[in-house]
C-alpha cells in the first residue's frame, strides 16, 4: 500500500499545483470565494476497508481551509469511517486498510514515512461522546501541550486561552483544579474542544459532537464552531440535517450502496457542494430525497 500511495502522492501533488481543478465539480464552484479557496484535504478514489469489507468506496472530495464541511447521510454510510481516515484514527483497528490517496496540503497522509502521531497533532478530533480524561479541567487542557513539551511557564496562558476560545473560561475559571467529570455534558464537550485546540492544530474533525447534548448546549457548540472557523478548518459529521444547514459552508452527502449478493453496505459519496446548493438545488435526486426526508 505504501509504495503505491507514495507514487500516487507525487503525481497528485503536481496536479494540485498545476491545475485549478476542484474535486467537487469545477463548474459549480468556479464562482464566488470558493474558487480561490485553499485545499486542505484532497481525497482521490479513497476507499477504507475493514479486512475484506469495504466500508467506503472511491471518495473524491476536497476540504477547504477555514470553512466548515459537513458530512451527512443515513446511518452506516461511512461518514465516521471517512472522517476517522483523515487523522488516521482507523489505524487503531488492526484490519483497517486504506486505498487511493488522501493528500493533506499536498502530502500523502498515508505515505511512507508519515507518522500517525504527527498527523494527529495537526489534525485534532472531537468525539461523539464527550471524553474528558479523569483529571482536573486544567490537566485536560494541558495534556496536548505537555505532550509537545511546551514550556511550563506558558501553560497557564495556554490553558486560559484555549478555554476562552472554547467559550468555557468564565464558567470554570474558579474550579480549574476540579475534576472534569463533574461538568455537565455540554461543558465536557466544550472542554474536549478546548483540549483539541490547545496545541493549535490546523484542522478540527468533529464526529457528531452534539449528538449527546441538549439543544442549548448544541447551540453553544454551533456558535463556537462559527468562531473557530476563522482559524481552523472544520469537518463535522452530523446526523442532524438542520445542523448541517445551519453551520456548514460545504456539505457532502454520503449514502449506502448495498451489494445485492453479499448484502455488504458500502458508503459512497453522492455529491458535495456548497451547503445552500445542497439544500435548495441538489444535483442528485437521492440527495434531495434524503434531505426532504423520503429515505434514511
Amino acid at each position, binding site marked *: 500500500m505504501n509504495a503505491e500511495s507514495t507514487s500516487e502522492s507525487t503525481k497528485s501533488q503536481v496536479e494540485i499545483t498545476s491545475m485549478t481543478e476542484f474535486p467537487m465539480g469545477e463548474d459549480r464552484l468556479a464562482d464566488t470565494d470558493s474558487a480561490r479557496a485553499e485545499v486542505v484535504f484532497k481525497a482521490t478514489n479513497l476507499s477504507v476497508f475493514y479486512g475484506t469489507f469495504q466500508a467506503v468506496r472511491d471518495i473524491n472530495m476536497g476540504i477547504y481551509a477555514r470553512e466548515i464541511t459537513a458530512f451527512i447521510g443515513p446511518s452506516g454510510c461511512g461518514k465516521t469511517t471517512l472522517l476517522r481516515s483523515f*487523522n488516521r*484514527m482507523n489505524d*487503531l483497528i*488492526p*484490519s483497517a486498510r486504506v486505498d487511493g490517496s488522501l493528500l493533506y496540503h499536498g502530502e500523502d497522509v498515508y505515505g511512507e514515512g508519515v507518522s500517525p*502521531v*504527527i498527523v*494527529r*497533532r495537526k489534525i*485534532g*478530533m472531537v*468525539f461523539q*461522546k464527550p*471524553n*474528558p*480524561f*479523569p*483529571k*482536573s479541567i486544567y490537566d485536560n487542557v494541558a*495534556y*496536548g501541550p505537555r*505532550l*509537545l513539551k511546551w514550556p511550563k511557564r506558558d501553560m497557564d496562558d495556554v490553558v486560559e486561552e484555549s478555554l476562552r476560545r472554547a467559550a468555557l473560561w468564565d464558567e470554570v475559571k474558579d474550579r480549574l483544579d*476540579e*475534576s*472534569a*467529570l463533574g461538568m455537565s455534558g455540554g461543558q465536557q464537550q466544550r472542554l*474536549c474542544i478546548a*483540549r*483539541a485546540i490547545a*496545541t493549535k492544530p490546523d484542522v478540527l474533525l468533529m464526529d457528531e459532537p452534539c449528538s449527546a447534548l441538549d439543544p442549548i448546549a448544541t447551540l453553544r457548540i454551533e456558535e463556537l464552531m462559527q468562531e473557530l472557523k476563522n482559524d481552523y478548518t472544520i469537518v463535522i459529521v452530523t446526523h442532524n440535517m438542520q445542523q448541517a444547514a445551519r453551520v456548514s459552508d460545504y456539505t457532502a452527502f454520503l449514502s449506502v450502496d448495498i451489494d445485492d449478493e453479499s448484502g455488504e453496505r458500502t458508503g459512497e459519496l453522492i455529491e458535495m457542494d456548497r451547503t445552500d446548493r445542497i439544500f435548495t438545488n441538489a444535483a442528485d435526486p437521492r440527495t434531495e430525497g434524503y434531505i426532504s426526508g423520503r429515505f434514511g
Partner: protein
Amino acid sequence: MRSNTPVTKESSRSSIVGATPAIERVFSAAFTFLVTSAVLFALSGLAVILIWAFSAGWSRVDLGLFTNAPSTARIETAGFRTAILGSLYVISGVIAIIVPIGVASALYLEEFSDRTSRFARFVDLNIQNLAGVPAIVFGILGLAFIVRGPFGLGFVAAAGSITLALLVLPTIIVASRESIRGVPRSLKEGALALGASPLKAVSTQVLPYALPGILTGAILSVARAFGEAAPLLLVGAVTFVTFNPRFWSDGYSVLPVMIYQYATRPQASFRLLAFAGVLVMLVLVMLMNSFAIWLRNHYDRPLQ
C-alpha cells in the same frame, strides 16, 4: 374514579392494587434464602477456622514468637524468625518478578498485540491453561530447571521466588487484563487524537485508570504465593534452619512449611507452636493486604 369517564366493568377491575402472585413470592423468598445461606456458609467456615486458631494458639503468642529462631531443644521459647524472614525474602522476590512481568504481559496482550493473530490467541489460551496447572507441577519444574538444571541456583530463597512467581503469574496477568479491558476506549482514543504516541496514551491514561484493578490482582497473587507450601517443598524450603536465611545462599524455610514441620511432631507443645504459627501468618497476611489496599485507595482514580 371519576364518574363521568365511560369505564367498562372489565377495565375498572384491572386495578394495579393487588398482591404479587403467591408462587412468585415463594420463589423469590426461596432464592433470597439460598443466596444468603451461601454467604453465611462461606463466612462461618472462615470464622470457625479463625476462632479455632485463636483459641488454640493465642496463649503461645508473644513477641518471642516473631523474634526467636526455631528450636527443637527449647520448645517453650522457640519462634518463627527465620521462617518469617524466609517467607519475606521469597515473597519480595515474587513481587519483584510478577508485577513488572505480569503488568507488561497484560499490556501487551490487551493494548499492543493484534488480538486476532494466532500468536495472541495461542498465548491467551495457554495463560488460562497455566492458571489451572497444579502447584506441585511448578515445584517439580522449579526443582528441575531452577534449583538444578540450566539455572542451577541450588536450594535458595531465590529459587523459591522464581518457582512461586511462575505459579501465580497467570493470576496477575488475567486480573490485570480484566482491569485494562475495563478502561474506556474513549480515553485512549482521546489521548491518541491529541497526538500521543501509543506508549504515551497507555502510560498516561490506560495504566493509571487500570491500576486499582491491577493492584487487586497483585494482592490475590501475593496472598496465594504467601500461603503456598507444596511447590516450595521441592525447591528447598524443607530445611529446618535456625540461622537467618539469605536470598542467594543455601538454606531457607517459609512459614507454611515451618508450621507443617511443627504440626507433625507428636509433642503437644509443638502443636501449640504450630497454632501460634498460623496466627503469625494471619497477622502478616493482613499487614500485607492492608498495605496493598491502602496503596490501591491511594491511587484509586483521584478524580472521579
